[in-house]
């Protein structure tokens, strides 16, 4: 811990981007000094990463409503000035995001404008890889969150010497350090040594043998009784299988004591957030939770599709924040969105938008320094018809690593991209 504190005090001098802050918040934010990280960083801080899959259109999320160019290039799908939830005299939120606007007014939301990277890639697959590995130039095997977990969690995988965990009621320890809510582990969470469970649904996470309960009991016994193997792979498989067999039961038992304090909406994204709140509340040693919502790939008929999804995002996050606040946990969780790219400035012939570049990110949490960071990208100074980015996404990652998780960003992300003062 002392090493970590020393590091943080050295890096506090890093240049931060100035925020353009709504008037009713400006004085408060300006007056507020940067937090003393060494004393306020909670080792139990949790990062919730929200993937907005498909490429979210930033211009209809944080709307530059006072810019005539916006209405000119989006005659059909543009959001009328009178409908926007105004943040200042230039920008405002899509009206379906009223619940998030409420949190913004409470100072719990930061908006980072114009996030991207050099030579942007417009392929879903490749751009997603770039965002999730934080390595635009070279393909790498492990995600940025996976690399963080590899650094902070004791190696489980090469744990041939590790004694078997007691099967029931034991401390789940490191096995839930990173949790994916979904069927598959995204590239961002792929680690070299740390096992990241993918939990599709809490009640079915585990060994499913249907009505044959004897099969499940026996399967657990088979792996509990396994002798330490000679092959390094045998040890790895046995250790992992024990976690797989018992992890779900341990997690469900721990979570049983946590009651969600609010009723979540019924969409799949909110269902993930409900479980995320349970995992945070249960105290199973989780540092990173990964959730996703999609698809934002709105090539045609954008308004209906994107508005529905942004509505899910805003209502879900509001419910999640309220749930945490009811348990006094809102200061321990920081939520962060990302998407593989924004979309083109002009609408296309199908009342949609095609793949573009920079977009805004949202940061939500009790400790967030609310406000807008960075200027809205110009709609006229374009790069090949697309928005120019102003903030490298790796500076946002570096910020949450350093100022939320208390970890040296250079240990995880190649290059120095500075930080943003949202936390």
């Amino acid at each position, binding site marked *: 811990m002392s090493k970590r504190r020393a590091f943080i005090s050295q890096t506090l001098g890093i240049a931060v981007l100035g925020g353009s802050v709504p008037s009713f918040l400006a004085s408060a934010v300006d007056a507020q000094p940067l937090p003393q990280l060494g004393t306020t960083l909670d080792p139990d801080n949790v990062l919730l990463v929200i993937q907005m899959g498909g490429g979210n259109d930033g211009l209809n999320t944080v709307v530059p409503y006072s810019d005539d160019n916006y209405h000119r290039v989006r005659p059909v799908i543009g959001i009328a000035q009178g409908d926007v939830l105004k943040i200042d005299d230039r920008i405002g939120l899509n009206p379906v995001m009223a619940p998030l606007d409420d949190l913004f007014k409470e100072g719990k939301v930061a908006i980072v404008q114009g996030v991207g990277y050099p030579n942007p890639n417009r392929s879903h697959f490749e751009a997603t890889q770039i965002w999730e590995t934080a390595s635009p130039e070279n393909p790498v095997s492990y995600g940025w969150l996976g690399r963080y977990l590899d650094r902070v969690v004791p190696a489980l995988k090469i744990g041939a010497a590790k004694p078997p965990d007691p099967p029931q009621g034991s401390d789940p320890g490191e096995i839930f350090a990173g949790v994916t809510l979904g069927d598959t582990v995204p590239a961002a969470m792929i680690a070299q040594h740390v096992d990241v469970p993918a939990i599709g649904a809490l009640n079915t996470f*585990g060994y499913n043998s249907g009505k044959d309960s004897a099969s499940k009991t026996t399967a657990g016994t088979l792996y509990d009784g396994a002798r330490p193997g000679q*092959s390094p792979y045998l040890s790895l498989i046995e250790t992992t299988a024990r976690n797989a067999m018992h992890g779900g039961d341990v997690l469900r038992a721990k979570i049983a004591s946590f009651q969600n304090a609010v009723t979540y909406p019924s969409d799949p994204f909110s269902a993930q957030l409900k479980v995320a709140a349970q995992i945070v509340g249960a105290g199973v040693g989780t540092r990173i939770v990964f959730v996703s919502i999609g698809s934002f790939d709105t090539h045609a008929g954008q308004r209906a599709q994107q508005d529905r999804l942004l509505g899910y995002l805003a209502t879900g996050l509001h419910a999640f924040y309220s749930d945490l606040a009811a348990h006094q946990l809102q200061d321990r969780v920081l939520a962060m969105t990302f998407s593989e790219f924004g979309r083109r400035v002009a609408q296309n012939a199908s009342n949609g938008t095609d793949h573009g570049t920079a977009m805004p990110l949202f940061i939500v949490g009790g400790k967030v320094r609310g406000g807008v960071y960075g200027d809205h990208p110009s709609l006229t100074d374009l790069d090949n018809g697309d928005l120019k980015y102003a903030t490298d996404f790796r500076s946002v990652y570096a910020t949450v690593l350093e100022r939320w998780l208390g970890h040296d960003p250079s240990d995880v992300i190649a290059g120095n991209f500075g930080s943003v003062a949202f936390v």
Partner: protein
Amino acid sequence: MKLDTSTDPQVGFRPPGPLEAATALDRYDGDFTRRHAAHLLRRAGFGGTPSEIDALASLGASAAVDSVLHPSGDEVAFAAYPDPALLYDDKTRNATAQNWWLDRMLRTRRPLTEKMTLFWHGHFATSIRKVPAVLMVEQIDLLRTNALGNFRTLLVSISKDPAMLVWLDNRYNNKLHPNENYAREVMELFALGLGNYTEDDVKNAARAFTGWTVDKSLAAVYKPALHDDGPKTFLGRSGPFGGEDVVDIIAQQPVHQRFICRKLLEFFVYSDPEPELIEGLARTYALSGYDLAQTVGTILRSNVFFSTRAYRALPKSPIEFTIGLLRLMNVSEVPKDTIGWLQRMGQEPMAPPSVKGWDGGPTWINTATLLARFNYVNRLVKAAPPRPPSEAPPQMTGTTATSATMTAATMPAGTTTGTAMTAAAAAATFPAFTPDDIVRQSGGLNAGRVLAAIVADTVQDDVTGDVRRTLADYLQSTGASLPTPFGPENYQEKIRGALALALNLPANQLN
């Protein structure tokens, strides 16, 4: 020049014990049991049924490897393409292409060729997420055609393959605006490895590959007007090189020979092979003029391949696990939801995570992927076809091994025989390897012999006594879900349950 293995996650997973380097690649002529035969079928294919294992075991090592390298009999008459109506429809194209290949893996009578096709797919890792499905189908065909051919020919062919030209952007590489993506990956990932070339080599190779592009219909074309025919310096040689010259120079590098042989050894033998073993195989590879059949043949015939250090020393990849399971269970058609399960297991075919392919080794194994394996087994093995209405359960035999009164000859018509099989016959994705087969093999409804058959058929007896006792307890368990011990009224469910448990043992996760 030397191999950079610093980013290989399989380092650290070499089996314990010393390598007998002097004789490691000499021909193996020792015992050849069912376990040796099953090992050969798993590594050089996707595993086998008990009868295939028995047949191979009777041949002895030399003839068995011959039969794997040079299969006799005709190949299944596979269609050249999937149904175009599905392959060109945005909604169905990816799954159509993927299932088309999985079906081939399941039913081929040339499993080694298909296994090598899978190897090259992981090596020249191209993804359907960027490349149209029809081009992926054609690339897999190209890999299959060259799977056991000549590496130089393969590398030239893949450099001109439309899927690759799209995937790594060589379609945009021209003399005015060179695109280095393909040239870089040829050296870093396909043939030499990091640290064995310079940035100048990348630039010069990119210039050499200019002109190899695709036309509007995405067919491969060479456009001389786009080609840079100026002088180039590449890996110490100079000349007005084109793409084929670059491939030739690459193949001649000793470090290339070690690079490709190390990867083959990690695929067929064990993780992180010793440098002496790599050197030995690299000599064979170079002397053969980059002939892959000879190189792979040398591996499969070798002492080290049949050594105890190599036995069950690799984790099965998800595709090996899945296709092996379907083959063992005699399923005639890949269940349609298998692609989704393979995603959860971490290896969706035609969709490697990046141009680096799948890292394999320890990265196959985590709680999410293991649970997907377990639950895929449970779902497949325990999904019983509807029982024909006329079927009566067989009778219990005596409790001693010799009192088998119920034999195959006297059993009532089961789900695979007789007249009442309409429902089952339609359900091609249900296992044809049924509890009744196990009962028949065991000579009757005797729990001990049924268990012995299950353990022999699934993991070739690679279990401890404790595991056997635990499985026996399961057959006789009287839990709420199966309230009576093994008997005529519940043998179907009990055998399915025990089969699933055996297939979920650690031994079946290992190849």
